[in-house]
């Protein structure tokens, strides 16, 4: 390439400064996590790991961690699997009919607050859409509390996110399927392989990067869940639907335990770092090639 490096600094500097500020905030978090800061005034008194130890002794904290893992396991597999199956089905129909794809994508443009408002109404036990429909076909709905049901609430919420994110995995898998070599599919077709076999034994192993992408991005999404919880249940019933970002917000802004809030942030950072760093290394490898 012909451009001089020195000239280039002009282009890169703003972003390097901005990203630098972002990382300085993360360092700030890590430092604050080891202080006994409470209340509005900054107190940089170091207390070692005591914030973390306090967190580990709270039952509420572990309920939150468990809920984050429920999100992780229950949200990712159905969303990516149905997204993949849909992408395969769309591949098999005419171009003109692919306009239907938009119907799965539009929820992606909605805010979690809109999704949450909408689904909170859908799930409302006394006047929500779902129970209204069930009642109209003669089903006794008094047992279906949906988000008011302590056991089921979190799964109802995950379903709302599934509704919103299905389009995402559909888009990523459609791109991945378009990139594969179709000779094998043709060959399998001639051999008389069924669609299930083609879908799972022939195409699926070849869209590995699509799977990696979808599951990584969905996993990161589960670490970010906050808005849905806030607007649908506010963590309830009890603390049954609380997740770590929500906990962090509560402990920082309602209880003013800045040190413990920062410690919770560090825990979220560690959990999500385990997902993001391998992905970024992979992205870097693709970038170089």
């Amino acid at each position, binding site marked *: *390439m*012909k*451009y001089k*490096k020195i000239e*280039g600094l002009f*282009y*890169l500097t*703003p*972003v390097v400064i*901005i*990203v630098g500020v972002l990382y300085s*905030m*993360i360092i*700030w978090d890590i430092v*604050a996590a080891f202080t006994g800061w409470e209340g509005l005034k900054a107190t940089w008194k170091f207390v070692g790991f005591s914030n973390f130890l306090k967190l580990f002794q709270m039952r509420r904290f572990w309920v939150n961690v468990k809920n984050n893992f429920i999100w992780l396991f229950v949200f990712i597999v159905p969303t990516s699997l149905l997204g993949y199956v849909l992408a395969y*089905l769309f591949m098999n*129909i005419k171009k003109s009919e692919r306009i*239907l794809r938009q119907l*799965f994508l*539009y*929820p*992606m*443009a909605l*805010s979690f*607050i809109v999704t949450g*408002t*909408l689904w*909170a109404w859908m799930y409302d036990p006394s*006047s929500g*859409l779902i129970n209204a429909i069930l009642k109209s076909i003669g089903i006794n709905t008094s047992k279906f509390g949906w988000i008011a049901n302590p056991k089921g609430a979190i799964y109802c919420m995950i379903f709302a996110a599934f509704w919103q994110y299905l389009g*995402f995995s559909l*888009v*990523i898998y459609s*791109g*991945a399927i378009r*990139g594969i070599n179709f000779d094998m599919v043709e060959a399998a077709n001639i051999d008389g392989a069924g*669609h299930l076999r083609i879908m799972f034994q022939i195409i699926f192993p070849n869209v590995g990067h699509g799977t990696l992408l979808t599951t990584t991005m969905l996993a*990161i999404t589960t*670490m*970010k869940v*906050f*808005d849905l919880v806030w607007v649908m249940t506010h963590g309830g019933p009890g603390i049954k639907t609380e997740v770590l*970002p929500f906990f*962090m*917000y509560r402990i*920082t802004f309602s209880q003013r335990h800045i040190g413990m*809030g*920062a410690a919770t*942030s*560090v825990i*979220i*950072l560690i959990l*999500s770092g385990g997902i*993001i*760093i391998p*992905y970024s*290394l992979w992205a*870097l490898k*693709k970038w*170089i090639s």
Partner: protein
Amino acid sequence: MKSNTFKFTAIFIIVVLAILWLLPVYAMLTTSLKNQEEVAKQEYIKLPKVPQIQNYIKAFKILKTGLKNSIIISIPATIICVFFGSLAGFYLTMFEFKLSRIVFFWIVVATFLPYQIVLIPITQYLSWLHLLDSYIGLILIYVILNVPMGTLITATFFMKVPSDFQEAASLDGCKSFTFYRRILIPLSLPGLVSSAILVFIQIYNEFLLALALTRGPRVKPVMPVLAELKGTQIAQWHIQMAGAVITSIIPLIIFIILSEYFVSGLMAGYGKE
């Protein structure tokens, strides 16, 4: 014959699912146009007898300051993100630089980091700068959080520009900024539109920072106001739904008109496909 049956089955499954996926929004729209008695009957699938425009007027009165604030904040933040992002994207794709890889790696990590974890330092930094509860403060924070994504997406689109272009241009004595402005930007316009759409929708839809960094209604963006509406209009489903429709109009219009760009932006940002 067999493949025709399959096509039919495929379309059938897709249509059934699509109806299910549309149902919530259909019910949202019809409910938002009903009066209280009709809502109380819980016949949500039925169309309203007379569309109740006043639901929208009522919801709009509550949301209008928030909407204005969201627009005032999202548009400049998006423009700044895409501008700085495209400069860095240009550098990372067109200049040979040893540290490029390291910079790229940290930009990717920053793109996907859950931003919730920096909420506490954000409030601290802004209170030092006396920018809490101000437009400038929110714009600044949204720029910081979304520049990595702007960079990643624009860089992905710039990579599609053949490097011969740039070599030829530099041989002809074309300055790098002239190349950026006259050749790269016009060639990658669809990419810039894609990244602008994604960044804009992200900022407009954001809730946590909009909630935590504002106090009164003066600069509060629309999403926290919508969440409050849900709290104050309990069981007033028609008003809540009208509010939800009003706040979704902007991103949905963008999505409907520019969905091709939205999809290609998604693929570029997440897939490099």
